[in-house]
């Protein structure tokens, strides 16, 4: 190998050999340049009062007005609180339930049953948000909804319009998210559990350890590093909400905004409904900057625990 390389280097410079590599990377680099880097220039809109007819660079500059408006209103606080708190609950609950599900599935004696059940549990992951929203509507609709039927069966009030009641929504959103995501998250833990050597369990069994003890002292400790890393990674993304969930399932209902508006839906509504481009960009920039800082911090922590799993 070295010999041929040396020979070739005599004939033509190294970079000529590398031309095909540059060509192969080119389409990808162009995509990133156009669709990831060019929009970053557009972030200047956060400091402008954008007039679409004038374009990005000729619109009047307003300094930090967009940010002042955002942070002086209660909006910034509400959307930040909602984004972070929902994500925190989603992350912790999802991990707990996914590990539990993986533990239970791995104990089933019939592998065939376990496999079939796993296939069913990951099904909701493959549904799109509009479909999930319609499924939710089948339950929550005031006139025909199934939930009102259950409530009435237990003697509760009839015909509650769930899309007008603020209180139950945090619970509804958590239930929908767990239903959609837990089965899928369990996949990773199932794979990890199957990778644990059987010898540990055999030794434990000979020492008379019960199944619960085995889970507690063998399985969970083995999953610990993975759980920690997934947890920290998830915390790195805590500033990014799931737009599909918060937009489609509550059907973008204004009454529910105090508990359903997150940064992502706020940016969308500021842009698409209010056409306040400057403000929408400012809120997006706020999200990007804080999100970036959080990724850096979480990655730093991960690289301390398990350098192999660090992003950089």
């Amino acid at each position, binding site marked *: *190998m070295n010999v*041929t390389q040396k020979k070739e280097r005599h004939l033509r410079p190294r970079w000529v050999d*590398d031309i095909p*590599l*540059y060509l*192969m990377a080119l*389409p*990808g*680099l162009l*995509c*990133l340049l156009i*669709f*990831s880097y*060019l*929009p970053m*220039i*557009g*972030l200047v809109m956060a400091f402008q009062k954008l007039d679409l007819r004038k374009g990005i660079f000729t619109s009047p500059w307003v300094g930090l007005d967009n940010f002042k408006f955002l942070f002086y209103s209660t909006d910034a606080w509400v959307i930040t609180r909602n984004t972070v708190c929902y994500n925190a609950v989603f992350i912790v609950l999802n991990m707990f339930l996914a590990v539990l599900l993986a533990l239970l599935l791995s104990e089933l*004696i019939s*592998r065939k049953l*376990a496999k079939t059940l796993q296939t*069913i*549990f*990951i*099904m909701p992951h*493959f*549904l*799109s948000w*509009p*479909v999930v929203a*319609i*499924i939710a509507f*089948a*339950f929550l609709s005031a006139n*025909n*909804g*199934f939930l009102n039927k259950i409530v009435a069966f237990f003697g509760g009030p009839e015909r509650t319009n769930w899309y007008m009641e603020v209180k139950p929504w945090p619970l509804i959103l958590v239930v929908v998210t767990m239903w959609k995501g837990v089965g899928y998250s369990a*996949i990773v833990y*199932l*794979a990890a559990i*199957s990778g644990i050597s*059987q010898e540990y*369990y055999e030794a434990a*069994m000979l020492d008379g350890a019960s*199944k619960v003890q085995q889970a507690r002292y063998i399985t969970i400790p083995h999953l610990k590093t993975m759980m920690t890393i*997934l947890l920290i990674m998830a915390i790195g993304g805590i500033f990014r909400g799931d737009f*599909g969930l918060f937009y*489609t399932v509550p059907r973008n209902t204004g009454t529910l905004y105090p508990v359903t508006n997150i940064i992502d839906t706020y940016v*969308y509504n500021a*842009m*698409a409904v209010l056409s306040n*481009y400057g403000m929408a*960009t400012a809120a*997006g920039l706020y*999200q*990007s900057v804080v999100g*970036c800082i959080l990724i*850096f911090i979480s990655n730093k922590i991960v690289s301390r625990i398990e350098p*192999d799993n660090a*992003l950089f």
Partner: protein
Amino acid sequence: MAKTYNRLNSISPGWNIALSVLLTISAILCVAPLVLVVVISLSSSSSLAYQGYTFWPSEWTTVAYRHLAKTGTQIANGYKVTIAYTVVNTVLSLFVMSMFAYVLAQKNFKARRAITLFAFFTMLFSGGLVPSYILNVQYLGMYNTFWIFIFPGLMSFYSCVILRTFITSSIPDSLFEAAKIDGAGHFRIYFQIVLPLFKAGLATIGLFKVVGNWNDWFTGKLYITEPKLTPLNTMLTRIMDSISFIKNNAANLNDDQIKAILNDMPTESARMAITVITVAPILFAYPFFQKYFVQGLTIGSVKG
């Protein structure tokens, strides 16, 4: 999943039954919401009017589906757009990303570090929704064109990293070197050695893309108003929006206006039928490709 389970160490038969029953009930509860939608799509409008949404309507009918088959040119169009979006974007993007991954896998390539940094930064920081929207609409002229489905989603660095992991783990370095000694250029190595050898990697990323594209409703919502170019999932959000519109504006609209909107709108069972035919292809397909999703997820989470 554990291949070698130890018979002695498995849970007692009694516990096994209890656990099986518990998990089976959970699984039934897990599919029940979707079953409800399927049942509503098969309920007659009179039983919906009397009973509301139930799992066991008094009258079953396939009239909603027959109606859609007869009048659903828009649905047929939605299918066409969704399939074209899914296929074209997935194929092109696999091509772009696998070439990029091949470059990332070349340990001796001088510019590799610079290219990685350039691409990696896009994972950390983004311009966000508004600048992308303005760029795509005002400067690239992709509003109401099919191209909006194809180009912006071509490249994901994260997927490239997973693809690179597939290349480096399934194709030994010595194979590349042998090919180079035989005088094969990079393009030849990529097409004749790499592509055929890492089908599993392409399948994994490709399937993630297929599901993502099929389920993408937001691109259509943001950039498409032309009915002919509206994907199925965007159509679903439009239908839901028009219901909300009537609800919220019922006081301001007169009866004729409401009637006009209602006439345009599919009946309750038809709405659910549209939902069912939107998800059906994915739901029938995913069990067969489950192994690739598992593979992609475990590689992604371990070597991300």
